């Protein structure tokens, strides 16, 4: 699917950043996390952002989550200027951040409780999501009984339970082993294709970004700026064989040149 054509020119983008910048004030002056950030994410689009540590990725995510304010520029969601946390945005952080006193199902229902949507009406949605992340039989277990990968899947189901239109993911699979990570990448792609969410995915794995995204935003550090936005035209659904195709390798190689190449990772 060619996403460039599916972005409706008339409707406002799901997420829009214009000249966005964030500077943290310190007694000796300011530290710029990122600046001159211009990006449009279309509805239903999967955009990944790669960059080294310290390029302002997490600062950017906090802004979009409504937890901190830009020092310059604009951020708008669904055409509305962002004023604080929004209910149509779901977030998955690097660590699952489950609540140990809640069962798996109750953890998934956390946004429902916070936003007072009524557990009864949302119960079927929650169970359906547990089904989607293959955790149906763990609904009544407690988080400590789950592996790291399973906990992160609970985190994803939790982010989706109040049916947000945008999913923000901050290195969600960064703490997991390579096998689990590949498996979850496949599950996430399936979930995205079935649910048609807009996903903004932060990672420092170039391969992961290329595998998942319609477009990869490449950031360089200090201060964080966009170096290039690369469209990834690999056909969907992508599978593990996609990762060994020459086209895939070409995309990875192209992005890696921004980070001084040979060492493979970004850090």
């Amino acid at each position: 699917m060619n996403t460039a054509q599916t972005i409706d020119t008339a409707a406002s983008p799901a997420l829009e950043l214009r000249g966005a910048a964030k500077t943290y004030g310190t007694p000796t002056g300011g530290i710029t996390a990122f600046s001159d950030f211009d990006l449009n994410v279309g509805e239903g689009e999967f955009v990944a952002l790669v960059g080294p540590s310290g390029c302002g990725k997490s600062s950017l995510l906090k802004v979009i989550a409504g937890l901190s304010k830009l020092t310059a520029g604009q951020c708008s969601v669904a055409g509305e200027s962002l004023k604080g946390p929004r209910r149509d945005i779901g977030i998955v952080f690097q660590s699952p951040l489950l609540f140990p006193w809640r069962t798996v199902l109750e953890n998934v229902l956390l946004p429902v409780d916070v936003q007072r949507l009524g557990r009864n009406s949302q119960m079927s949605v929650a169970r359906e999501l547990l089904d989607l992340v293959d955790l149906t039989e763990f609904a009544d277990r407690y988080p400590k009984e789950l592996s790291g990968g399973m906990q992160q899947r609970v985190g994803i189901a939790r982010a989706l339970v109040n049916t947000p239109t945008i999913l923000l993911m901050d290195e969600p699979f960064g703490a997991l082993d390579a096998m689990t990570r590949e498996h979850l990448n496949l599950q996430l792609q399936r979930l995205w294709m079935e649910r048609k969410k807009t996903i903004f995915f932060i990672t420092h794995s170039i391969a992961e970004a290329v595998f998942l995204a319609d477009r990869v935003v490449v950031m360089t550090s200090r201060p964080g700026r966009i170096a290039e936005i690369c469209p990834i035209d690999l056909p969907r659904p992508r599978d593990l064989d996609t990762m060994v195709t020459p086209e895939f390798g070409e995309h990875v190689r192209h992005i890696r040149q921004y980070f001084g190449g040979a060492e493979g990772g970004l850090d």
Partner: protein
Amino acid sequence: MRKDPTQGVTGWTLTLVLFVAVIGGWELIVRLLDVPSFLFPTPSAIAVGLWRGLGSGIYLRHTWVTLVEVIAGFALGSAIGFALGVLVALNRTVAYFLRPYILAFQTIPKVALVPVIVLWFGLGLNSKIVAAAIICFFPVMINTIAGLAAADPDRIALLRAMGASKMQVFRLLRLPTAGPYIFAGLEIAVTFALIGAIVAEFLGAEAGLGMLMQSMNFNMDVAGSFSILVLLSLIGMGLTWAIVLIRRRVLYWEDPADRN
């Protein structure tokens, strides 16, 4: 894996052997050295005193009085400690103005207040309840403050991003996180409450184990005094055990291995 020596049949046997050795050694030394019983009683004399006191019903009556004082004082003190802890933890202004008083109060030996409390509240139950409450509220308050501050910032950010209010962050995250801290405070507080009630009874009471012990001391019935100490120790252990049981119910998600 190495075997834990405190577990299993051998553990129980060793505990029993040690107990018999300590009690037997005590009995033997007191008898051999011919220590007068009004200075240091033998375990057998203490046991006889306990038996007599329990049999006549006197101990039970006074135990009941002391137990009521301790539990009421503990409930009152814990409630105040928890409420103040919540106020300090949630409200910066309150915390700012209350902190010097908390620090000042922290340095006072609370037992030194008990004579004044007896003067104010009289010889009846009230002074004992107030004394128990004043001595036991502090650990609950301090642990509540620490526990409510212990909530993980990332989880707070997660809740805020969902649109949670300050009250919801408190209810959904801070309070359950504080649970283990608060219960650790309650375990200390319940033995503190016992100290408060007994000291107040020493200083002037109409009934209670402390009063009974005091009158035995005046009569040089040291074996009797010791038998009441045994009773107090049993009460203290029973109350602590009750808190532990409640903790297991309330903090059901806790890993038993994480408790100490």
